[in-house]
């Protein structure tokens, strides 16, 4: 169904939209001159990196802009004009004509209300039905979004549901009144990849069965390829390119779209494709006689008694010096626990962790510190992992202060040379974390991790919070540094494509166990274990043609996940 075949009113029509936010420093433009249309039943993806204004466009369509926003231009949903100051008439539209699915299902629901009541609210807001009838409809809706035992689950509180189930509840709220337009703002970004596939399946089936148009806001090109019919690309508040998904994703016209697509890490799905990214395969093999990190049947348990929980179950692997081991798996699979056990922050309940051929926990305190100085760590959140009150100089120099005796000048030189090797300008040394962008902050973290010239680097979701173009530059810096310094790297990530690009060997984790491991080229291309296959097929690739084929294979070959 395309926009030209229908003479009816557009589900969403935006004409020359400008939005600016008033901040202390003055007015900041967020959206400039955006015009777009979504026809009934159509799925339009709005893509762009953080700060591109895509979420602002979505919020404008809901009339949910914050009070410090000024907008000009026309926005109408199924013929009704959306105007910011007019709250009262907007309340009649929201939840009935246009509704929204949010990014974070953990916080999108009221924690103190039963989910049944939260679904019923959107029904009683717009239709004059008795409470009992609204509740009955809530049960039907829960069933429609694929939650088993809806009669029982309706009495649950949000914290009793998993992330995917919560997102299903949010979707149930959004579709309760058969809206003309459904806005989905990064609906799967906070979810695991197999859950993401289920939610995308659900959204697709809901959208195709009705006349509801979908405005999908996302940064994930794989999701776009999987779900959208048309796509619009935003850059710094402006629309730079739009068209059919196949045209834009396969033959991008605008220079920015091309750059963006090039930066997206792609999962190789066949063996005959060359592997241009992964260049350090050979150096790894030659250095493999020195083992940097070895896990031998390591188990870690949390709690005791009834609450005893095995976070790691007999995990074994070897990480040779100068090589990279990718650790993949979904949330709760034990990836980060493995990282914490590796640096001695967690005591294994069984098995041994050997760091540079020594058992860390058997060493006396002083020697252990010396060993710990040879490990560098980069964590996921570039905001939370730097002390906001320490300058870049202090942040990066902190390991030096703890482990080395150097004069002030020596320290400064060392920090400056490290900042140079992560490609940060010399001027940032006096700046504070909040003055830097996300990618710059992550590079500061990397400089801090590498200042002691570690023999092992642990990167725990180090690029997961970054935009793809920033991720690409951070990853290339990491590869370059590894070639210079020759450290081993434990690369923890949920992103299979990134792991494939970065590591020679890979271990797939599930519920505290390694279910499959081996050379990246074989495990992630010809997996032997069903779970790895599920993970691989659940991750959408940013090529609409390939993705449609893969989806068909999955549907024929059985369901994904669960």
């Amino acid at each position, binding site marked *: 169904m395309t926009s030209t075949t229908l003479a009816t009113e557009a589900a969403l029509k935006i004409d020359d939209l400008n939005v600016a936010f008033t901040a202390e420093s003055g007015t900041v433009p967020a959206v400039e001159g955006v015009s777009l249309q979504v026809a009934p039943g159509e799925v339009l993806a709005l893509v762009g990196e953080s700060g591109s204004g895509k979420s602002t466009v979505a919020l404008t369509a809901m009339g949910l802009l914050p009070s410090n926003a000024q907008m000009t231009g026309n926005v109408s949903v199924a013929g009704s004009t959306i105007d910011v100051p007019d709250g009262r008439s907007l*309340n009649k539209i929201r939840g009935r004509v246009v509704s929204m699915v*949010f990014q974070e299902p953990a916080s*999108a629901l009221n924690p103190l209300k039963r989910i049944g009541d939260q679904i019923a609210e959107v029904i009683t807001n717009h239709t004059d039905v008795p409470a009992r009838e609204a509740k009955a409809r809530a049960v039907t809706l829960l069933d429609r979004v694929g939650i088993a035992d809806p009669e029982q689950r309706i009495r649950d*509180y949000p914290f*009793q549901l998993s992330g995917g189930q919560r997102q299903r509840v949010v979707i149930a*709220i959004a579709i309760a009144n058969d809206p003309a337009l459904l806005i989905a703002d990064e609906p799967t970004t906070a979810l695991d990849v197999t859950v993401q596939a289920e939610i995308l399946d659900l959204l697709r089936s809901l959208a195709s069965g009705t006349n509801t148009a979908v405005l999908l806001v996302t940064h994930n090109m794989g999701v776009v390829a999987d779900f959208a019919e048309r796509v619009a690309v935003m850059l710094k508040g402006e629309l730079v390119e739009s068209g059919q998904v196949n045209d834009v994703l396969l033959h991008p016209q605008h220079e920015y779209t091309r750059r963006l697509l090039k930066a997206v890490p792609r999962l190789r799905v066949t063996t005959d494709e060359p592997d241009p990214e992964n260049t350090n395969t050979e150096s790894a093999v030659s250095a493999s006689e020195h083992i940097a990190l070895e896990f031998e049947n390591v188990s870690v348990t949390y709690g005791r008694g009834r609450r005893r929980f095995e976070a790691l179950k007999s995990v074994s692997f070897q990480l040779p010096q100068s090589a990279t081991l990718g650790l993949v798996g979904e949330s709760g699979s034990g990836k980060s626990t493995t990282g914490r056990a590796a640096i001695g922050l967690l005591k294994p309940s069984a098995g041994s962790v050997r760091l540079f051929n020594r058992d860390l926990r058997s060493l006396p305190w002083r020697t252990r510190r010396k060993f710990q100085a040879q490990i560098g760590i980069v964590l996921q959140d570039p905001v939370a992992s730097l002390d906001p009150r320490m300058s870049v100089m202090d942040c990066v120099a902190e390991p030096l202060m703890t482990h080395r005796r150097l004069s002030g000048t020596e320290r400064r030189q060392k920090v400056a040379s490290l900042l140079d090797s992560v490609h940060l300008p010399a001027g940032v040394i006096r700046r504070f974390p909040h003055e830097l962008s996300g990618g710059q902050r992550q590079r500061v973290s990397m400089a801090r991790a590498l200042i002691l010239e570690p023999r092992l680097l642990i990167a725990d979701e180090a690029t997961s919070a970054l935009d793809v173009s920033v991720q690409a530059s951070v990853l290339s810096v990491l590869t370059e540094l590894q070639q210079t310094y020759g450290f081993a790297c434990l690369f923890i990530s949920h992103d299979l494509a990134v792991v494939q690009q970065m590591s020679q060997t890979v271990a797939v984790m599930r519920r505290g166990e390694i279910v499959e491991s081996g050379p990246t080229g074989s495990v992630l291309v010809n997996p032997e274990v069903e779970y790895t296959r599920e993970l691989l097929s659940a991750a959408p690739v940013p090529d609409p043609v390939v993705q449609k084929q893969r989806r068909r294979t999955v549907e024929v070959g059985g369901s994904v996940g669960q």
Partner: protein
Amino acid sequence: METFRFILKRVGQSVVVVFLVTIVVFALLHLLPGGPARGILGVQATPEQIAAFKEKRGLDEPLVIQYLEYLGRLLQGDLGRSYVLNAPVADLIIDRLPKTLLLSVLSAAVGLMIALPLGIWQAYKRNRPSDYVLTSLSFVAYATPVFFVGLILIIVFTQWLSWFPPLAPRGDSIADILSDPQALVLPVTTAALGIIALFSRYMRASTLDNLSEDYVRTAAAKGTSEGQILARHVFRNSLTSITTMLGYYIPVLFAGSLVVEQLFNYPGMGLLFWNAAQAPDFPVLLGCVLIISIATVIGSLLADLVQVFIDPRVRHSS
């Protein structure tokens, strides 16, 4: 079942805390320079007089023995005899406690009934003139000492306007006191004013915190109006932090009644404590401090229990 275990655990913790409190209170008062004997007999007492007094009252025994004896008597409901009033401390407290509870509960109820809607209103009208005016007023009210507020109220409403009597109701029983509601207005207002000032601030902040939560945006996306969002979603969620604060506020309420009771000559625990401190009458002081401490522990226990009913996560995760 889990709720029951949680309650049992919290009650157990409270009992332990009360025991620790008895140790601290006992030790503090006995470690004062000169000890209780010097306090009773005055600075001019001779060492012989003090020694004789100590022996008579058992004050020359080791502190541990004195404490254990004290604890043993405590468990039988015996808080000792007042040095000054020569009556059992327990009787004095049993006579006064209900009156102070009445005053405290009344002022807390009146105060909260005004403070909570006021805080929500301010959050709703945030950063607008009415919010600024109310914020300034509550800062002034919070910064003004209780006795000063009381004096001003007495001057305005008894001297100038003659609406209310300057003295609290006299009477031995609760019924007597309640039969003269007019005389209760000024003491209750004085004590409530501080609650209004403080808790309207808490409520405003808590409401604003909740208004910035994602679930409020979800509710708005359902077409729920801002008023309905406040009533259906934000109010109850904001109460979770208010109940905890209220539990902590109980000692402040007692301290406030100390001044209010003195000011309006109301025969409650505050007046008893005040007179005992002036004497000084150590058994009465010990008794009062103990009761106030127990009230504080019970207060935060109640706050936690209320939390269990407001927040399902507390019920299930504990």
